[in-house]
């Protein structure tokens, strides 16, 4: 599962564009669907400010 850090997030939205399973949405804050996320880490690699982390 991926955790989103609001303090670090710079709002670029690139994670949403890079998610291959549409698990991420944004209404200003990022929501990550636990059902859809397959832990591929594409969002984490694309984040320019390290606002996404793997969590257990």
């Amino acid at each position, binding site marked *: 599962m991926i955790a989103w850090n*609001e303090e670090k997030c*710079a*709002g*670029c*939205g*690139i994670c*949403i*564009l*890079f998610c291959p399973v549409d698990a991420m949405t*944004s*209404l*200003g*804050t990022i929501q990550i669907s636990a059902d859809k996320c397959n832990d591929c880490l594409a969002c984490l*690699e*694309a984040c*320019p*400010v390290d606002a996404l982390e793997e969590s257990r």
Partner: protein
Amino acid sequence: MKHVNYDVVVIGSGVGGTTSAALLAKAGYKTLVVEKLPFAGGRCATHDYHGYKLNTGLNTVTDECHGALCREVGADFEMRVTDNQWVYRIKGKDYPQPKSGKGVLKTMIGHAANDEAEADRLMQAIKKCMAWAPPSYSMSLDEWLREYTDNPAILGMFQNYLAAAGAIRNSEMPAGEYFRMMKEIDASGRIWGYLPGGGGQLTDSLVKAIKKMGGEVCTGSTAVQIKVRDGADVGEKVRKGGQSIEIAAQAVISDAGVKRTVDLAGKDLFPSGYLKDASAVKGAPQTIIYFTHDRPLIEADSVICLTEARRVFMYSTNTNSCPERAPKGKHLSGAAAYLESSLPPFDLKKEVEMSLQDLRDNIPNFDKYAQILTIRVNRGDWGLMKTWPGYVMPVKTPVVGLYTVGDDCGPLGWWCSPAAVQSGRQAVADVIQRYKPA
């Protein structure tokens, strides 16, 4: 550890970085661009999202600035100048902005002013600032305007102009810098156009040109340290896929942002005055909403400019001029909004809700026919621009051989991507003067 040699290493592949690298490669320097993200372009990239081409930042370019650069370095540049009508919604009525010629500002101020005397008073003051001397940097644009009028329609119109070019609020804008920009505007380019496949075509095209001229661009490669060898020579350590590489170079040009650059080289190398100036550099935030629709929702070929909405200052249908940017039969539209304040903390949910409410109020049947694609509140280190207009750093850092580029290092009066291009030009001109290709 692996060691390699280059003449110049460029950190970051945004507009400033790719401009620098392309000019260096053309001048015969062995050039390497390292980019930590898996794609090139930074805030000048375009990504495919379900068939829609969405920009991470840069939307429009000018022939005078971006076009001239591309021609100089042999990069493709196809700008589509549109016949878009800019429409200003002032006091609930729509006024088309004259497309060219003298007196555009006078005409628009005339629409917003309560009477002729008010319009004249303001126009005289503007003329004086342009023809004689600009106002101080110590007063804000809002304070300057309010010496002549407190008419919300006029203040709103200036807020619209400012948000579109500089992404901050009137009260945050140094008045002197606003007028300086108006004077520099002919050099940075007056006629803006779109790149048919999205703003990212600019850096894509520059990257292609860099490679064609023998330069290298490595994505997924993070600069982890800038090392200074003997005070006149710099090198860099880069991590790529878990492997560390040490790169020796005569000069390093960083497009990673001033603060990140300081961190990479180590704070101890910078005098306190530089660090103080650097701390004044802060991202200019903006909310961007992309939405799609099957039927036209916005008057054809119009850019609607709101002057008295809560947050949204502009929206248009991108596919009117660039149908390439959406699947067949679909429209792609974008709206831009300023924030209540450009300084954190930001109430993200409130900002987005207010922006959506503006769209509902101004676009008939928005909820019924528009489908939201993405909503983002660009801020902090990934603000729509790296800095507020007027808060810029010099291209040459106190560390010999280390340059910074980007819109936070451009000359005063230049904003946004033209500033980034100009900073790259300045850095490369200095490199060429001091260092010869090995």
